[in-house]
């Protein structure tokens, strides 16, 4: 891993020529990262603006409408018009709001979402801002600060809707954060590293996307990520029919836009973690780069290495948008959960499923270890300090994932939770009826007049 880190940070030759041979440190640690940061921020913020457009279009198509059509061809300039409008709108601060906190809250929210972009591996080699060896941990830690922005916004607005929205979002995010953390551990057992680049390279070495080894982990991750980003069907913090707009009820103008940006940036980040951890990251277009670099005339336009990197970025973005589309598809299909149902799903299904997935994956893993390490089946080999599943080992892990872990966890949880809804509503009501009847029979309460 150390080799990768050093090659990643090395500045290209033309930048070193520009800065001077004596300033290689500056070129490596300041100039190159700043250029990358500017590019990533520009691209991501544009994509965030257009995600709003895509969301409106997808929702319109699903609901037999056309969506934005008037600003530019097919409404393509709509995000520009929206942005202009939001900048020009008045920035209203409620009279009795806690002004400093009110102004700070959206900044915290959007900063927490954007800082995480630093460790997302957009592509192979140079196409990431920094390859930290605890990348995934960094993402989980920093992105969970985002909830602080929502809580502060709700509290400082001095409005009951905002406060209720903030309370809900904090409870929801704390619950789903646990399931999110548990769901990724199964995949990390196979990857054996927290570095985002390392996880992708581990999947390349194994020749397998971890979604096939970890179907339960992937499902739990997707659902918890929906809860974590406050998206429908878990959009209780901003449930329109109940709370007007939730935590950002009192916000207007560009501060409101910051909350929107934070929400959509969070979608990009959770999707990119899903792509990196479960869907093979930027791998998958290697055959195309081999094909193109086979034509010798392309070498004068682009070197084979850079071609590979650019194609890897395309692969990553394609997978990213597939996951984001699934999020939108779910949002415009399923109705919102009630609050107790949300908590039930989080605590009675997602967290136990995440825990059980860790235990079962551990069991399958230990059983498949090489016989010299005490395994039963010996389906893994030691390749250059890493345990890699052999051909039969891959089939074994896929079979145990789909035919073992998923039905076992689903069956057990369904058995445990089968009466929980009856208990919550029906049984409790019946209990009160029975107790009252007993009291009436004893004559402890006077008989109602007309009965």
């Amino acid at each position, binding site marked *: 891993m150390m080799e990768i880190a050093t090659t990643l940070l090395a500045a290209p030759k033309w930048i070193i020529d520009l800065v001077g041979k004596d300033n290689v440190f500056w070129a490596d640690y300041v100039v190159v990262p700043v250029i990358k940061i500017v590019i990533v921020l520009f691209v991501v913020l544009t994509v965030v603006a257009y995600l709003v457009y895509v969301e409106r279009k*997808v929702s*319109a*198509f*699903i*609901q*037999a*409408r*056309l969506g934005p*059509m008037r600003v530019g061809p097919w409404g393509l300039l709509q995000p520009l018009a929206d942005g202009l409008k939001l900048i020009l709108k008045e920035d209203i601060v409620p009279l009795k709001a806690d002004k400093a906190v009110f102004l700070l809250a959206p900044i915290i929210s959007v900063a927490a979402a954007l800082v995480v972009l630093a460790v997302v591996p957009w592509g192979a080699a140079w196409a990431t801002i920094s390859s930290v060896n605890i990348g995934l941990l960094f993402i989980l830690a920093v992105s969970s600060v985002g909830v602080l922005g929502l809580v502060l916004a709700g509290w400082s607005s001095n409005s009951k809707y905002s406060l209720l929205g903030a309370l809900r979002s904090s409870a929801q995010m704390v619950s789903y954060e646990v399931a999110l953390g548990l769901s990724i551990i199964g995949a990390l057992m196979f990857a054996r590293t927290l570095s985002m680049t390392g996880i992708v390279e581990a999947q390349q070495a194994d020749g397998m996307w971890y979604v096939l080894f970890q179907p339960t982990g992937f499902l739990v991750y997707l659902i918890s990520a929906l809860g974590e980003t406050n998206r429908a069907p878990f959009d209780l913090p901003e449930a329109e029919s109940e709370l007007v707009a939730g935590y950002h009820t009192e916000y207007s103008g560009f501060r409101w836009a910051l909350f929107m940006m934070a929400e959509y940036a969070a979608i990009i980040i959770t999707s990119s973690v899903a792509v990196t951890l479960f869907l093979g990251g930027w791998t998958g277009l290697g055959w195309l780069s081999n094909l193109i670099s086979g034509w010798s005339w392309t070498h004068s336009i682009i070197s084979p290495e850079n071609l590979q990197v650019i194609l890897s970025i395309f692969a990553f973005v394609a997978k990213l948008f597939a996951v984001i589309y699934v999020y939108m*598809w*779910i949002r*415009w*299909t*399923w109705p919102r959960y009630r609050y107790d149902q949300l908590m039930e799903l989080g605590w009675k299904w997602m967290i136990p499923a995440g825990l059980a997935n860790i235990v079962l994956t551990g069991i399958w893993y230990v059983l498949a270890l090489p016989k010299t390490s005490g395994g039963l089946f010996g389906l893994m080999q030691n390749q250059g300090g890493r345990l890699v599943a052999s051909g039969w080992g891959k089939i074994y892990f896929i079979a145990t994932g789909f035919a073992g872990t998923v039905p076992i966890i*689903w069956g057990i949880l*369904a058995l445990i939770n089968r009466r929980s809804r*009856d208990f919550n509503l*029906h049984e409790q009501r*019946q209990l009160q*009826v029975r107790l*009252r*009847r007993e009291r*009436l029979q004893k004559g402890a309460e006077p008989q*109602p007049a007309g*009965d």
Partner: protein
Amino acid sequence: MPSVTTPVRKRTLSEVIKRLLLLDLFKGLAVTFKYNARALYEKREGGNPNQAIYTEQYPRERPRVSERFRGAPRLNLDPETGGTLCIACDLCALACPVDCIEVGSIRREVREGDKVNKKKVLTTFIFDTSRCMFCNLCSEACPTDCLELTQGFELAVYHRSGFRWDREMLEKGINYVRYSK
């Protein structure tokens, strides 16, 4: 107090399996995906209920108006001579429940071949669309199929006087401002 017993129905096995596999949720996803895919490849024809997208972009494309819709009035002309079909019989004005039609006529000598007949000739025809309720009784009463309620529906004007349609407007139709884009 009357005791209330709510019968708890046992679920059948197929219902249990359906609940366990979340089939209803996936059915919903299939429906929305089908609509989304159809919206992308289907050729659009606004307001067609059999299509994935129902929207008609009104000022940019003409909406589909039903054939029996009763809208802007019109005085039809004789297709051969180009003269009006109206014989100034005043039946439409009599039939109108809200008295929004005024027919003006004079008796005049009209030469037809060799003979000269005294005849009623139409001079003015005023149709007040602000009072009209588009009941079509005038059109039913017309013996020469001259007065007709067409499918035109853009009757908005900038001033109240614009609601009084005179004979020229009724024969030629009013000039709409056509917005492009």
